[in-house]
């Protein structure tokens, strides 16, 4: 048992059954940590770049490759077909050096964007780290995007290089390559030979590249990562993160994920979502732990096997997956040895209290929810290992992060001190991993801030003990299976179908994935609302947007409710869907 913890904290045991002893949390006393916290002390735990500055890849890989973890497995990739590939820290350093040299040979330099569209294979991780070493900017895309979202993001992000596979290239990129004039090279992770002057074999380039690379001086404010996130009214926004973010990646890996050097860590998120980069690549490597990567898609039994066979001790996953495991039922510990598991965390949408308790019954450890966004770069509010869990709450702010519930009115932002009152969740600006821009969109960036606060767009409450509780989104953005979908992006594609006159897209509540993307469409004159047409529209949307973004349901509607200024009132569509009172209709047309 650990000293210095409150009685409430002592209710939750920390058991490392493999060593048959208690694991002392890295953050044993939350209040004391908040009092003594400084970012300088976090920086002091890192190395700093030998030539000056701060580079994420140096801290994540090279410093371990030269230290006592050099032969430890850094990444263990479990292939979809049962194969397995491992890279030690030393090997990862050499391979990422090669990738940096490949970029250099292609003339790709500082600040230029390298995109990935890849399944979770070792090359994806090597490319991410090599890109950071080259001081270029890594921008991962989710492989279930269709050609539409891919083009939109590559164009907005001025993609110079795309790392992808032969199959994904053929299916999703080859047909739209003419729309990507800024793209200089496509690197195919599985092609033995170059296809032409632009579509190149990555294995061949890697074989020709040197494994020695010296990271150039990197300013902590140099752009490192670009993550796209959905907007309500416009196209997706590209949130810019800088190398300085590594301070928060490290601090949250220590204090929230509670990584100890002998842990085996599994983050189930794909790097195409921000969680899969901040915590599925960077944070575990920073702490020198072995991370497991599973290439395959969700499969309940397979996941239990991975947890058991890999002896996963810290597991970061999402409510959608947890609810699927709950659906599977039974006691997994009868079939699988899950004794190594000592900490389970969840992010993406609020975890219902029932799921928190199910975790405790099923695994012997509760599931700890936390909250953050693409814009925040890393975890901001969390249920810490040493703190009491309030099921359904996102937890307490990270030491070093100031959160508040605010009211945004005519006089700007006003803090709500009183507990239990709903408002907008805000964070005091200028933490290390705060986004530094929306690329090419200063206006939307500026709108996120007021009087020194970052306004998250999420509605929340704070209780008397300082725990935060999520209420809902303040806008029309849809949260489905833990990721954001912008209705505008979906509506725009639906409108391109020849039979569609107008489209309104909402999130329909769903017990498994939070919200389902549902589209209401009205048809052009002469088009009949048949099952055949429904399928035609759905197929059209899936082909363009991919399964991650396309609607799951399409309903025909005669005319959609609009405001006087012509905007579709999604709020009203949602209210109708739920059979709720429709609220203030004064701005509605008709």
């Amino acid at each position: 048992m650990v000293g210095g913890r409150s009685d409430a904290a002592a209710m939750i045991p920390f058991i490392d059954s493999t060593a048959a002893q208690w694991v002392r949390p890295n953050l044993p006393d939350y209040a004391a940590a908040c009092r003594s916290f400084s970012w300088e002390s976090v920086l002091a735990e890192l190395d700093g770049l030998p030539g000056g500055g701060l580079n994420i890849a140096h801290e994540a890989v090279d410093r371990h490759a030269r230290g006592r973890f050099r032969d430890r497995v850094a990444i263990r990739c479990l292939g979809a077909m049962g194969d397995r590939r491992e890279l030690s820290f030393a090997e990862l350093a050499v391979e990422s050096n090669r990738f940096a040299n490949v970029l250099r040979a292609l003339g790709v330099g500082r600040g230029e964007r390298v995109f990935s569209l890849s399944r979770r294979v070792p090359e994806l991780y090597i490319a991410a780290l090599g890109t950071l070493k080259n001081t270029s900017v890594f921008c991962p895309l989710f492989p279930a995007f269709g050609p539409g979202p891919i083009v939109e993001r590559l164009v907005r992000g001025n993609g110079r290089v795309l790392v992808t596979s032969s199959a994904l290239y053929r299916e999703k990129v080859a047909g739209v390559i003419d729309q990507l004039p800024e793209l200089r090279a496509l690197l195919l992770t599985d092609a033995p030979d170059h296809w032409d002057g632009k579509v190149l074999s990555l294995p061949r380039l890697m074989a020709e590249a040197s494994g020695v690379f010296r990271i150039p001086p990197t300013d902590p404010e140099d752009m490192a990562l670009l993550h796209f996130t959905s907007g309500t009214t416009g196209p997706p926004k590209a949130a810019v993160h800088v190398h300085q973010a590594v301070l928060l990646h490290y601090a949250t890996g220590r204090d929230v994920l509670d990584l100890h050097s002998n842990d085996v860590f599994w983050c189930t998120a794909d790097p195409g979502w921000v969680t899969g980069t901040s915590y599925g690549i960077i944070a575990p490597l920073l702490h020198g732990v072995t991370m497991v990567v599973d290439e395959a898609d969700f499969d309940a039994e397979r996941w239990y096997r991975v947890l058991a066979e890999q002896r996963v001790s810290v597991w970061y996953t999402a409510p959608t997956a947890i609810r699927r495991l709950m659906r599977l039922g039974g006691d997994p510990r009868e079939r699988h040895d899950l004794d190594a598991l000592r900490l389970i965390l969840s992010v993406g949408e609020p975890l219902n209290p029932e799921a928190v308790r199910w975790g405790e019954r099923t695994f012997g450890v509760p599931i700890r929810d936390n909250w953050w966004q693409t814009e925040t770069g890393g975890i901001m509010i969390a249920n810490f290992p040493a703190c009491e869990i309030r099921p359904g709450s996102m937890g307490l702010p990270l030491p070093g992060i100031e959160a508040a519930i605010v009211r945004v009115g005519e006089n700007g932002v006003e803090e709500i001190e009183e507990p239990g009152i709903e408002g907008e969740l805000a964070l005091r600006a200028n933490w290390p991993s705060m986004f530094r821009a929306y690329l090419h969109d200063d206006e939307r960036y500026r709108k996120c801030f007021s009087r020194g606060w970052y306004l998250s767009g999420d509605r929340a409450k704070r209780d008397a003990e300082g725990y935060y509780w999520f209420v809902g989104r303040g806008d029309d953005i849809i949260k489905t299976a833990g990721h954001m979908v912008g209705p505008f992006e979906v509506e725009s594609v639906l409108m391109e179908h020849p039979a569609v006159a107008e489209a309104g897209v909402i999130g329909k509540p769903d017990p498994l994935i939070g919200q389902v993307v549902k589209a209401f469409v009205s048809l052009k004159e002469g088009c009949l609302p048949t099952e055949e047409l429904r399928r035609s529209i759905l197929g059209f949307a899936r082909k363009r947007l991919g399964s991650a973004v396309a609607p799951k349901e399409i309903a025909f509607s005669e005319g959609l409710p609009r405001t006087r200024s012509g905007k579709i009132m999604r709020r009203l569509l949602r209210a109708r869907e739920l059979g709720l009172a429709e609220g203030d209709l004064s701005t509605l047309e008709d």
Partner: protein
Amino acid sequence: MTDSEIRDAILDGLARIAPEADLASLDPKANLRAALDLDSFDFLRFLIELGEATGVEVPEADYGCVTTLETMSEYITKAARGRGQRGRD
């Protein structure tokens, strides 16, 4: 249900969820989720609807046994024959 009725029920269900797919040229041994771009929610919903159409409910634990057209047809056929025992043996 005959084998071909079961196969038709599967193809009908896939066409509802992924109408853009060219099912005529689908390789019976291909992973359905990868070949047809079905996310885990699509696949879940497809299997629930297939259960309603065929009377064979595939429990979540067996989702890994029905990843291709071929293995799915076999699974449903077998379960339909042994009806009364629940959809697995």
